[in-house]
């Protein structure tokens, strides 16, 4: 199969949207085509870099936003989140 076909799939490869067998086929094709290989690897790394970005949210930001809310008229106390088992609908048993 020619590499034009594989070049059209690079975006899907980068986002891990391809079935595993086509992904493996892409990787085999990349062995014989350096440009395709760099395109696949660099684009996937771009996506992986974004997806692995840590959260910039800090305790200080949490408190400052809370203070802004209270100063501007919201009336509540910070709560702890519900336990995980209350956050999802469980199937009815019995």
């Amino acid at each position: 199969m020619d590499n034009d076909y594989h070049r059209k799939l690079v975006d899907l490869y980068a986002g891990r949207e391809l079935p595993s067998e086509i992904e493996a086929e892409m990787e085999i094709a990349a062995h014989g085509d350096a440009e395709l290989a760099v395109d696949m690897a660099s684009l996937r790394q771009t996506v992986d870099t974004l997806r692995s970005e840590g959260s910039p949210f800090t305790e200080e930001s949490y408190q400052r936003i809370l203070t802004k809310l209270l100063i501007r008229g919201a009336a509540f106390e910070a709560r702890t989140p519900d336990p995980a088992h209350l956050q999802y609908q469980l199937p009815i048993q019995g």
Partner: protein
Amino acid sequence: MPNDASRDTLAERRWIVALAEGDPSALGGLYELYGERIFRYAYRMLGNRADAEDATAETFLRVLRRSAELRADGAFRTWIFRIARNLCIDKLRQHKLMELPPDAQYPGNEDRSTLRVTVQQALDALPPEYREPLILCDLEEMGAREAAELLKISVPALKSRLYRGRRALRDKLGTHFERTYGQRLPS
């Protein structure tokens, strides 16, 4: 708001109903659930911690003011993100007028902070039509359908912008990747 009951959790629905019925303390529950996500989105959009905190607070105040409109019909997340998005767009317009510098640095692991700053600077340099799909789909891991709904575009248009945005970001990060791969990236 469109109906997609699968999106809201039980706790979220309870707080939405309580807030709609006039219990302002329910906003605290929604802040616990959504505060971090809205802040992250605003921070990525604005590149500035102070503005992101302000936009996050204003988002929740608008939720409170419009609480009578709230329905636990599964679309709350899209709705609150849309409020945050509109606020961010307003702030970006102000930035453009005032030419405020972005503030991409924040405390954290020093090994990652350089890459974070690089990524944030590269995001800041992208046109908004590419930046937004990247923030929503890759950073916030929102599904394509929901992100398209939020941006009021079709799913194919969203995917097209997402793919172009990734390539544009890759090009902005070119120096970093060219060092890694030892050759120029395909154009």
